[in-house]
């Protein structure tokens, strides 16, 4: 288990995370980074496909409650994650493998830390069960 490097897919909303880094954005800081215009754009199928493709965890970084540039996108994303947690548990995929963090971090200072922490908690769970 100690050699296990969890594969994490990270979606982040451009209006809340890293928009002050300029140029290549957060590519250098996070592996498997997918920038989106709004966390509400992240489809359920995107998340399930990630697990199917072998991701051990999916992290969604959205904007704080009440602060979505597109009004309620982060609320939609939060709903989706909540419902997916229930669904994934039935398939034997632990809740902790899908995480949504709603905050604002224009310079992306905290991202490395957030990703690291999630990596550690996934590490304890081990590789994802094949679905």
């Amino acid at each position, binding site marked *: 288990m100690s050699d296990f490097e969890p594969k994490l897919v990270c979606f982040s909303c451009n209006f809340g995370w890293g928009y*002050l880094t300029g140029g290549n954005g957060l590519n250098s800081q996070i592996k498997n980074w997918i920038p989106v215009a709004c966390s509400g754009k992240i489809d359920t199928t995107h998340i399930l496909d990630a697990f199917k493709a072998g991701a051990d965890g999916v992290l969604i970084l959205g904007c704080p409650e009440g602060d979505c540039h597109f009004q309620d996108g982060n609320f939609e994303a939060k709903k989706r994650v909540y419902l997916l947690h229930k669904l994934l548990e039935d398939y034997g995929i632990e809740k902790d493998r899908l995480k949504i963090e709603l905050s604002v971090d*224009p310079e992306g200072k905290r991202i490395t830390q957030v990703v690291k922490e999630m990596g550690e908690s996934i590490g304890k769970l081990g590789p994802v069960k094949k679905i």
Partner: protein
Amino acid sequence: MWKTESIGSARVEDAVKQFLPPCQIRCPINEDIQRTNVLISLLPDDPDSAKEGIIQIGDYLYEKNPFFTVCGYICGLCENDCNYTTKGGAIKRRLLKRFLSDTFTPYLVQKKPLDVKKDKGKVAVIGAGPGGLMAAYELSKRGYTVTVFDSSNKLGGAARYIPKYRLPEQVMDAVVDNLVRIAGIDVKLGVKVGEGGLDLQQLRDDGYKAFFVATGTPYARPLTFGTAEVEGQELDGVMYGLTLLWEVNQGNIPADYYKGKKVIVIGGGNVAFDVARTARRLGGDVTIVCLEIMDKASKDAIPADEEELVGAREEGLTIITSRGVRGITKVDGKLKLDCPLCTSVFDERGFNPQIECADCIDLEGDVILPTIGQMTDRDFLQNEALLNEVGRLQADPLTLQSKVEDVFVGGDVRRIGFLADAMGEGVEAAESIDRYLSGIDLKRGRVKECEPYDAPYRRAYRDEPKHKWVPADRRINFDMFEEGFTLEEAIEEGRRCITCGPCISCKACVSVGIQDDLPVVEVNEDLCSGCRMCVYVCNYEAAQVKEVDGKIVSWTDDLKCKSCGMCVAACPSGARQLVGDKTEGRIKEIYAAL
């Protein structure tokens, strides 16, 4: 073989009907309010790093509106039409611009002059107020050599009457001094066109090819009762409020000028309140008397802004409503006002005060400051043959062209309005003069129909930030009593803007790289089941349904769509997609490599 040329009526015209957020429709300059609100919300929260961003936003605003820093203190017309007004309070756009001004005003002296070849000929602007200076700026940008004439010793026109506790002198000075430098405008202060043999014909002989007359309303309106001028206005101790404002701003009035004196200001408008609160700050015990009544919902409502009424009361001023002034007399060294009751101010005939002479009170004071309106310099207009047969200044409302073909008029001289209104007319006059001197039709394509958008829906709206005023007992000076936004507050207020307007009028996100582009949403009508999930999830009413051959399918109103992708994610049938969006491709790539 024909030759195609883009001149005259063969020129492509601007769109004449478009959608805009209501704030931009209200703004006489059509400032890019939404775009710059979003850009402010994206500033870093460290003041030093934010400077660079603020200068960029300021430079962008300056292009259309070199007075934007002044607007940050005394405008805010856009806020009256803001959609957020009914949902928690208008976005405080004026304070956002004041925030930008804090950094931009000191930077103005470094701003580089325009790089424009001035080879299109000479234009003269009469009046160096906001209207005249805007026209001069716009014409300079287009390559005209502009000379501005003003009879006073300062640039800025009517803005120079605004008390310093509402508009700091250095903000105004920085704007006008740098504007003439940046635009290369030739300035002739202390020169009154219409006096000393200098008239428009003389200027034509000197080679000026067109004129913009923006002489404003420099004279105070005398008090009248019915049709006659009120007796006693020439008595010692009676001075027009307008004169006081000018003299205070010139620095000619000592700090305790009205200490121990009872001052009565006649008038209920914003200027009367400027005069009254100025007199208070000079140590006076001030009463305001006006025809109108307090009830803001009435036809006879006192014209002054709510903020002025609240501020005045806090500062200890007394406001007496429903009173006219029939006469001024001197009794035992004091000035006595004869004030009958006014029972109605406006009726179907317009301004038509109804007076009840039997109900009359006396008001006593040491100083009387009538401030009931302003008038144009009619002699000048008359001598230049700009008045029509009934004695009115004639000007085409669309082109601002006067009776005389090379003379255009605008601003308060044409119709009394706000500072921004005069600026808007300066912009229009410049366009008219450019077309006139280029031989292009003056009217074509200039009527713009703009429809305002509603606010998008969201689950939770936020209240406006409370105003921050210095307590009234510490306001008896000419410093600004209103505190502006900190960087943090500005970012938060910028975020509160719900971007009512269409993407095509904004593009803030594209300009900073948050979105590469604005992909279009396409609906596959065969897959669409008509379930309306997209309609539910779209906050902008862009996703809608229609009936096609008896089947309900969804479609997207491109003009309202923000390309956020929420409808695409919400669609259970996968009937929607964002055409040209690179996200799907990137996801595939990453998943394949996992």
